[in-house]
């Protein structure tokens, strides 16, 4: 029985199918299924099909206890990409500026070091991780929780297109499958399954990102959690992971070490004297312009100018009126 028939049957009936069902409905469907015509349609839409039994199916994903029948793949990169060194960066959709910054930084630095960033194309941490990877010229894979022909959420349509320009988007769901809440945990097992290591950036209690982490732990993969403030609800999930024994992530080097890599040297930038002293204060923690003015003794105008210099050099980012070192 072909795996493609399983995927097509799942799409047809709106169900989730991993093993061959034994009911009549499937036997009837399989008898009438024209695999060649279906593949031709997929090719016409620029979608590739990688069956579970095919040699190019990523071995890491094959190793999980319920691998999908196969993957639908879109993008300019070769399917080989899924077999290279991959790391998942996942987290809350409504993340804090801190979460967004860390996700972006990880995407950028891990991407620059040659790792493939896998994430779920969602808002918040996922999107930032993808963007960080793209920024550094790294490769990235977006795993969808809906049909391969859909870009969900719609706000990330452009991001999905940018990912496909150099990397891939993949899904276990055939074209036409609508996004549904229950499909996202299933999608998370693919993110965890594809990746040798998983980093959770920010997660509330019972967040979807924790499902990804649990699945990764079950498969014996490396799981990192980014420590957060103990008072922040957005870090409750990640701090719990740390309590349970996940490795704390204090920098991209922690992840690179697992892969036996070292970070690419970040280019050094020359900063003005004012900018240097502002950056020194920012390294102690995020601060509002007023706090920076008090710490450095600069007036509002000179401080604004120094902060822009830091932003342009990529040394600082602003969010909600608060600046933090990058």
């Amino acid at each position: 029985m072909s795996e493609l028939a399983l995927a097509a049957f799942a799409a047809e009936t709106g169900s989730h199918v991993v093993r061959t069902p034994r009911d009549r409905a499937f036997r009837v469907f399989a008898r009438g299924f024209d695999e060649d015509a279906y593949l031709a349609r997929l090719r016409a839409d620029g979608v590739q099909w990688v069956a579970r039994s095919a040699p190019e199916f990523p071995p890491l994903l094959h190793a999980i206890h319920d691998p999908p029948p196969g993957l639908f793949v879109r993008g300019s990169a070769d399917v080989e990409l899924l077999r290279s060194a991959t790391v998942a960066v996942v987290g809350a959709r409504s993340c804090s500026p801190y979460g967004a910054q860390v996700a972006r930084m990880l995407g950028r630095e891990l991407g620059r070091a040659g790792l493939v960033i896998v994430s779920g194309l969602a808002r918040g941490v996922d999107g930032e991780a993808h963007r960080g990877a793209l920024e550094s010229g790294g490769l990235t894979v977006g795993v969808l929780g809906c049909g391969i022909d859909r870009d969900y959420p719609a706000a990330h349509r452009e991001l999905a297109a940018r990912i496909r320009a150099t990397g891939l988007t993949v899904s276990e769901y055939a074209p036409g499958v609508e996004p549904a809440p229950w499909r996202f945990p299933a999608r998370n097992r693919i993110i965890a399954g594809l990746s040798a290591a998983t980093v959770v950036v920010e997660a509330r209690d019972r967040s979807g990102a924790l499902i990804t982490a649990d699945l990764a732990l079950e498969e014996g993969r490396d799981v990192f959690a980014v420590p957060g403030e103990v008072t922040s609800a957005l870090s409750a999930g990640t701090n719990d992971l740390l309590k349970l024994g996940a490795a704390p992530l204090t920098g991209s080097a922690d992840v690179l070490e697992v892969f036996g890599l070292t970070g690419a040297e970040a280019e050094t930038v020359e900063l003005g004297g004012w900018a240097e002293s502002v950056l020194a204060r920012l390294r102690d923690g995020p601060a509002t312009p007023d706090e920076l003015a008090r710490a450095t003794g600069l007036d509002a105008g000179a401080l604004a100018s120094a902060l822009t210099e830091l932003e342009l050099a990529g040394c600082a980012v602003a969010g909600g009126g608060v600046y933090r070192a990058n």
Partner: protein
Amino acid sequence: MGWVLARTITHALVGLETRRVEVEAHLENGVPGFAIVGLADRACQEAKHRVRSGIASAELDWPMRRITVNLAPAALRKEGSAFDLPIALAILAASGQIPRDSLDDHAAVGELALDGRLRPVGGVLALAEAALGAGLPRMLCAARSSPEAALAGIDPVPVRHLADAVAYLRGELVPEPWVPRNGHLADAPGHDLADLRGQERARRALEVAATGGHNLLLAGPPGTGKTMLARRLPGILPPLSPEEAIEVTRIHSVAGMLAADRPLVTARPLRSPHYSATVAALVGGGPGPRPGEVSLAHRGVLVLDEFAEFQRPALEALRQPLEDGVVAIARVGGRAVFPARFQLVAAMNLCPCGARGDPAADCKCSPQRLSAFRDKLSRALLDRFDLVVAMPRPRAAELAAPPGEASEPVRRRVAAARERLDVARAEWTKEATELLDRAVERLPLSGRGRARARRVAETIAALASEPAVGTEHLSEALAYRSPTELGAP
């Protein structure tokens, strides 16, 4: 005698413009009656009753004849109560109680009370200017309106009671000039910047905005001083020039908002409409178009608090006045144009729940709500703000800080920098131009964003009294670009 005719000249307001109106009274024998013709609205029709009681109260005779009053030209819609006095005078002239030629070089305007006293009406300044333009050297008006009429250069005749007007026109009395009871008031002390603690960046942005006339958007959680700061902008702007004061007074007079003892508006207006304001309330409208908030804020400051809560159509309607400095309202009867050259200061939260930018609170907005919130502020509208400043919640230490700089020294710096801006356009150093190109790619900055950064950098250079825009001026200007929370710059 079969019939007699008399007329008075007055003017009607159409928006801020005026049209000459001749009030003709026609008396003939027949069944006594009183009709007003010539497209008079309800308030104007009710003049019948006020005029009849007024004449009786002044112990004059109501002619027991058939009276027709025509307001010409008949095709122009007449509104309001300003025609009471001209109608009464025309009837009195027609019935021979005042010399008919005495009205030839007088304009008349005012509303009659039932006891014959004359009440002030709106728009006297514009009406007096029109009367003078029509070659009438004197204007009969309510005593309280006379200082306002005098601003136009006309010779006002302050009328307290209809009997005074009659006595004056008969040559029996010269009315006493109106002396405001409180004398001349100094401008009430406004809000001072010293009241605001911390928020140095926002204060600096306010100073830059005042210097360059830039529109300013303040964004941050509630209680960070956004509104306080916005209300302090007029206090650091230079005072109105005499011509500007007349312009502003004309608009406020038409809107009926002049204080009785202050005929001339000398302080820069500050308007802050509530966010439930309709399109008509903001930009003006109504059947006989009335100026909206944007025109009342002409030469002053329009503060829109809770900017994101305004109705989308109301916000979009702001784009024309922001661009052109005028509001044009088309009506069947013609087009009214109101000046609306104001400086906009808007304040808003960074997200619907208001917790963004507040380290002590956790934003609970769903992504859908956030994106709807951002969508409401169209790109085109955000592009009108040269300066956008996020105001995070200050920590306790900030609030314990000593009071900030007072408005007066800031006002002096602004005035000096404004003069420098008027004299010459700023040069750009090579380094600054290069930095701008780099920023456009790096940030990234749209075409409009680039133009905004240029304008603001030139203002900052003027504040620093530098002849050329340097990198430090441009990089400060770039710090005031729209933050990513509100969509890309």
